[in-house]
Each structure stands twice: as structure tokens, then as C-alpha cells.
């Protein structure tokens, strides 16, 4: 059902945990749908120095979060904002069709954390000018 890479990131998730005094925090998802992702960023000099995640969700949600954090760690915020769900899926060697939404959630969690950082610092991040946090009430699960 899952690729080796998914199972590896599920079994040994990278960057798990929370972060005190994070520079940006983003949470997306909804318990109703069965997955919530929260991403914490430590940003220094426009670079993502550290990243942590907490996830409530299925195997692919955990693996997607883990992979997403790996993909943006050490990157500039401009690189990070360009992370796509497709990149996450590819890095994981694929996800079952019904689970692709998990990678979408991971992308959104990263964007949401970057947006929080932008809001707190008053910076404008290219690509997030028109970003609007998703309202849970509008969410149709998957």
C-alpha cells in the first residue's frame, strides 16, 4: 500500500515535536477529516534554520509532514514557499490516490507557517501576497 519511503518517514519521522518561541507557526486540517498538521519554523536571515511538526493523522499524513519538513529545512523562505504537494509526493516515491490530500495538507501547513511569519514580521513573501488561511468550516474532507 505505501512505498518504502513513506513507511520509513512514518516509522522514523524527522523533526517531530513542538518549538518554543517559533518565528512562524501554521496549523491546517481538522479532526473531522482525520488529519491536522502543525508546523513550527525557526527563521534566521530569511533561512529556515529549524523546523518541527506535530501531526494527528494517518500514516501518509505523518510521512508527508516529515518529508515536507526535510524538504524545507535549511532552505530560504522563498524556496520554501515554492514547496508543492507534488514535490512531497515525488520525494515519498508516490502516495495512494486517496492519500494525496495528505501531501496537499503538508504544503498548506508550510505556507501557513510562512504566512504567520510574514504577518508577525511584516514581511512580504513572494507567492503569499494573496494567501488566505483556510476556514475549517468550508472544508470538505478530501
Amino acid at each position, binding site marked *: 500500500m505505501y512505498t518504502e519511503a513513506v513507511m520509513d518517514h512514518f516509522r522514523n519521522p524527522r523533526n517531530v515535536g513542538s518549538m518554543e518561541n517559533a518565528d512562524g507557526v501554521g496549523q491546517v486540517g481538522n479532526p473531522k477529516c482525520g488529519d491536522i498538521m502543525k508546523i513550527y519554523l525557526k527563521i534566521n536571515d530569511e533561512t529556515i534554520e529549524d523546523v518541527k511538526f*506535530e501531526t494527528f*493523522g494517518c500514516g501518509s499524513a*505523518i510521512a508527508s509532514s516529515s518529508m515536507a519538513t526535510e524538504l524545507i529545512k535549511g532552505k530560504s523562505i522563498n524556496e520554501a514557499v515554492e514547496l508543492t504537494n507534488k514535490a512531497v509526493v515525488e520525494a515519498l516515491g508516490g502516495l495512494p490516490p486517496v492519500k494525496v490530500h495528505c501531501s496537499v495538507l503538508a504544503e498548506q501547513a508550510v505556507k501557513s507557517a510562512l504566512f504567520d511569519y510574514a504577518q508577525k514580521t511584516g514581511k512580504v513573501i513572494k507567492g503569499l501576497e494573496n494567501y488566505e488561511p483556510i476556514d475549517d468550516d468550508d472544508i470538505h474532507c478530501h
Partner: protein
Amino acid sequence: MSKKFYLDNAATTRVKKEVIDEMLKYFDEKYGNPSSQLYELGRRSKEAIDNARKIVADFINADEKEIYFTAGGSESDNWALKGVAFANFNKGKNHIITTKIEHHAVLHTCEYLEKFGVKTTYLDVDKYGMIDLEQLKEAITPETMLISIMFANNEIGTIQPIEQIGEIAKEHGVLLHVDAVQAMGAVKIDVKKQHIDLLSMSAHKLGGPKGIGGMFIRKGVKIDNLIHGGGQERGKRAGTEGVQNIVGFAKAVELASKDFDAHVKKLTSLRNKFIEGIKNNIPDVILNGHPTMRLPNNVNFSYKYVEGESILLLLDMDGISASSGSACTSGSLDPSHVLLATGLDHGTAHGSIRFTIGEETTEEDISFVVQTMKGIVERLRMMSPIKNDEDLYKK
């Protein structure tokens, strides 16, 4: 290979040795077509089916002539509902009463029948998964042709008061169909005493092979065929009989009837230890289903703040097989309709795991699984952004 813990016996069971041995005679030895009564090989197959029919009939206190073999529980459920509905087609009766916690084989059939003008009432259940007999009585109208209520639920194990339901159905002159797929071998079934008119059975839930089941149809019940064709099953269910499977089904039933009481007692005691083990070792859990009116092998809990699939994947790494919701829906994304019907919120429903023990399960297995679960739940809760009920409900 390290030890395996198969705790998903409600999904399916290992086929018993004695069942396999019995079946093996009907592959390349007694392989005749039971419809071919004019030669030896055909007669041997026919005798085997007749004998199997008797065993199944006795097990539920029915007459042999009231037992029909099908390809499984789903076919039986479909046949009961569609067969009765189509027999009443254009006869002014168009109402079915069922519950919100039936198996999809019943629920999706009811939905389908809407396009033929059938109306369905779905009875509520309480937090234990029990229906309300008063609501049932009130739901009956002059148009009601069928009440379809499962004996025991596959996910939460709750056992309905079928005898009382049967009395209500009888009083009102409405047919009663009972899905007994999970109840077979775990609960005493007596179609006479319980006033059951149609009963669905499946072999693979009690040590028999997959793809074979049965239906009890009380003499005189008007029902259309689901599968038309040859004259098999006294003209009611066409298709060359899966003789080997029928023989295996009957053998499984025979074995189940042999030490029924001891088996149920043993499982119940293990189940109770399992339930206590989870409750005492893991905080923030909710037992799903009825505390006592439940299947002797069913242990279903919701583990707050974590999600079920992750638990299953981690259990699998330790060789433990379990299920979140029913086997049919694991892998699907919506939380179980049964858990929602008992009033669980979606978030909590997502974190539910069903263990269903079997004959081979030991006390040591249970201790090991409880400890493993404790570790898994702790680990996932550490990873979870939800730490308490407030997190769960706040946006």
C-alpha cells in the same frame, strides 16, 4: 518469522483444519455436479449438500427446506431486501425499516431500492449501539413490508434484543430479516423462538471458507430470486453449487455447535481481560459498544487525540492485525457510520481500533497487545498537535 497476533476475526477467520480436510474430498474426488442425479458422482455431491443443509438448519432451529446457500453474507442481505421488495413491487407495500448501524450490504441495498420507490426508515441507536423498541414500533406503517436489523454489530459488537424485535414484527405482521453474519457461533440463534423470517449467514466469520453463506427463509415467505437460472436450491438460487465451500461451511457450523458454551465463555473472559487491560493502562479511551450485550470477541476502543490508521500500521510492525472500523472501510477515509451513529464526534471516531479475538488468542497475547498499544498510543500522542478535548473541538 516472529509471532503473529491475528486479532481481526470479525473481518475473517483462519479456515479450520477440520474444515479444510472435509472440503478436500470435493475437489478431485467427489467433483460431480449435484444436479446430475443420474450418475454416482452427481449423487455424492447432492448428498453432501443435503447433509450440509441439515447441519446449518439444526444450528438455527430451522427446517432443512428453509436453508438456501449463497455466495456469502452480502448476497444474502441483498437477496433478503431486494427479494422481498421486488416481490411486493406494485403491491402497495414499499417501506423498509432498518437501523443506522447495519452493514453496508444492507444500507447500500436500501439506498439502491429507493430508485424503485422503496422508502426506508433508519432507526437510531443509543451510545451503546442499542436500538429503541418504542421507536421501532412507531416506525411501522401499513406500507411496511420488512424490518431488517442485525443480530450483532460487526464493528462495536452490540447485540440487539432480537427476540423482542421478532415479537414486535410478528404482532404487526411485518417480515423480519436478521443479518446474523457476526452473531453465528457467538450468540444462540433460534429462528422459531426469535420469530425471524429471513436470516443472513456467512461461513468465513466462523472458521469456514470465504465466498459462501446461507439464507434462512421461513416457509411461505414471498421473495423474488436474486439469481435466476437453473433449478438449484429448489429453484430459488441458481448457479452450480460451490459444493466444496458448502461442505466447509457446514463443517465450521458443526464445530461451532459442538463446544458452543465453552467457546463463548472462554472468549468472553479473555475479552473482559482485554477491555480491563486497555482501560487500566491507557488514559483517555472510550469503550465503543455495549458493556455487556456485546459479542464475546469484540474489543473496540477510541483512543483520543490519535488517528486509527497510524495505530494499525504500527501494530502491523509488531505482527498484530486489527482493524479500524469494519474491514470493508479500512483504507477508506470517512469515519465509521456505526461509531458516528453512537454519537462519537468525527475526531474521536477516527481514533478507534477494533480487536476481535479468536480461538487461538491467549492471555499472554492480550497482555502483549495491551502493552504494545500503550506504547503506540503514547508515541502518537507525543506527535499529535491535539493534546486535550479543547484542541479537538477548537477550530
